[in-house]
């Protein structure tokens, strides 16, 4: 399959995903907030800087992925542009990968990376102490965003309706985070499996704990590192497989 064809389809779909003003407005607002936060708050480590900046950014990214990314796929189905895509001489596998990149990967990278870079510029001397940790934290938030996005577009493919996709995606996001909160609240100690599971449900917490903890008993287990990336991989694969093998608009 010609790369030229796939890149053509990607640019066609991206033009819808990143059409103004929503994405630009969100990037502007969260970047501004990140820069302000970097100025007004005192941070002693790069990990805490990344954590404080990227937590609200992750919420904004999840909202964008639900309301524009996944809902955009439902809209493609309901307004029949998906039929136009499927009538192109491009394999369904390529279309699925293009949609995943356009609706999940690109917006996640833009929304996570730009505020991270802006805050990094403001607090350059602090970042330069441990730049790899700063990057690792960014990547961990990106993986978490990809996880949400993968689940949301899977919902979109099944729901096929813009409104239902938005509602179910947001319901999933908040339920997931409430469950993590409940698990961590009811767990007996910070070393209990329940607490570890609650932490592992947020990949960035696992990475943060790994980078900041010197106590061996508190260090994450291997499964904690694997939980969210595996769920992301499974959701993304499910989306690609359903679209390329079973999906009918």
């Amino acid at each position: 399959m010609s790369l030229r064809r796939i890149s053509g389809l990607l640019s066609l779909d991206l033009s819808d995903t990143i059409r103004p003003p929503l994405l630009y407005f969100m990037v502007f607002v969260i970047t501004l907030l990140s820069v302000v936060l970097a100025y007004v708050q005192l941070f002693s480590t790069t990990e805490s800087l990344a954590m404080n900046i990227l937590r609200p950014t992750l919420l904004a990214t999840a909202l964008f992925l639900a309301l524009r990314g996944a809902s955009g796929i439902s809209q493609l189905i309901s307004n029949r542009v998906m039929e136009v895509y499927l009538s192109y001489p491009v394999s369904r596998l390529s279309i699925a990968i293009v949609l995943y990149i356009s609706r999940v990967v690109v917006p996640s990278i833009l929304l996570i990376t730009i505020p991270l870079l802006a805050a990094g510029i403001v607090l350059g001397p602090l970042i330069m102490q441990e730049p790899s940790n700063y990057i690792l934290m960014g990547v961990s938030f990106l993986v978490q965003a990809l996880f949400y996005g993968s689940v949301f577009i899977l919902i979109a493919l099944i729901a096929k309706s813009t409104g239902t996709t938005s509602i179910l995606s947001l319901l999933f996001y908040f339920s997931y985070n409430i469950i993590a909160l409940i698990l961590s609240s009811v767990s007996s100690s910070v070393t209990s499996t329940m607490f570890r599971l609650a932490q592992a449900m947020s990949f960035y917490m696992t990475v943060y704990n790994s980078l900041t903890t010197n106590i061996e008993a508190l260090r994450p287990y291997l499964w904690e590192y694997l939980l969210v990336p595996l769920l992301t991989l499974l959701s993304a694969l499910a989306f690609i497989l359903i679209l390329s093998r079973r999906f009918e608009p």
Partner: protein
Amino acid sequence: MRAPIILENVTKTYGNKKALLNVSITVKEKKITGLLGPNGSGKTTMIKIILGIIRKDTGKVLLRGTDPFKDPRAREHVGYIPERPELPNSMPVREVLITAARIYGSTSPKDTVDEAISLAGLSGNEWKRFKELSAGLKQRAAIAHALISNPDILIADEPTSNLDPIERVRILDLLVDLNRKENLTLLFTGHVLAEVSRIAEDIIVLRNGKLLFQGSPRNLMDIASIVAIRANDLVRLSKLLEEQGFKTRYTPFSLTVYLSGREEIPRLMKVLGILAGRHGIDIYSIDTVEASLEEMLRRE
């Protein structure tokens, strides 16, 4: 030479509903083929299966010699005009077309698009976004989009729906022009027999997912013979003809008799003569009429 579109015993079900049932058709190269049928007859399902947009349950589908669901190369030179045309609104139509031309592998997308815009009669409106276009111009944009594939085959699903009568004629004439000038194989769907038979050289009729007919418009008219009778007691005549095995429909002014072919007309005349004499019915006139699709399907 192999036919560009072949369906053999194709079946498609949605849940319990059979959308297509053992349908076999062949679309002839460089001809205009009209696909007729009422709503829900399976026309759009057939079009989508031909393009590989949806899967068939059983049977064989060949588009340019290959299965379009499995091999996307089957769609390389196939233009598609959907039932309700839609293109992305994020860019002006011209930009969408240029991007689509790249997807179709055009080496000079701008030239391809200029030619398609000119052929489709969209010139002057190509910088608007799709949603800003009128219904007729949207249809033309969809035609331009279908043409950028440099098609051998053009598949149009209800290309005249939602258009006013003047625009309907213009769009159909444009499709005929494309068939003649560009040597395209054209497969299009429609509801109105008169409209489809005006341009189609071959007609396929579907009803409830089953193939009723494939052949020339002339043959279709022959098998769809309808006779209108005016008489003094239409209700009684209707009842008597039904008893003789004729299918009739009573209206206040005439009685419509549906025949399975023109060869049935002599038998009808003979039966009418006997009934008129035996039951004292005065027959004022007997006329053969051109069947509409609805009348033809009612006969089935």
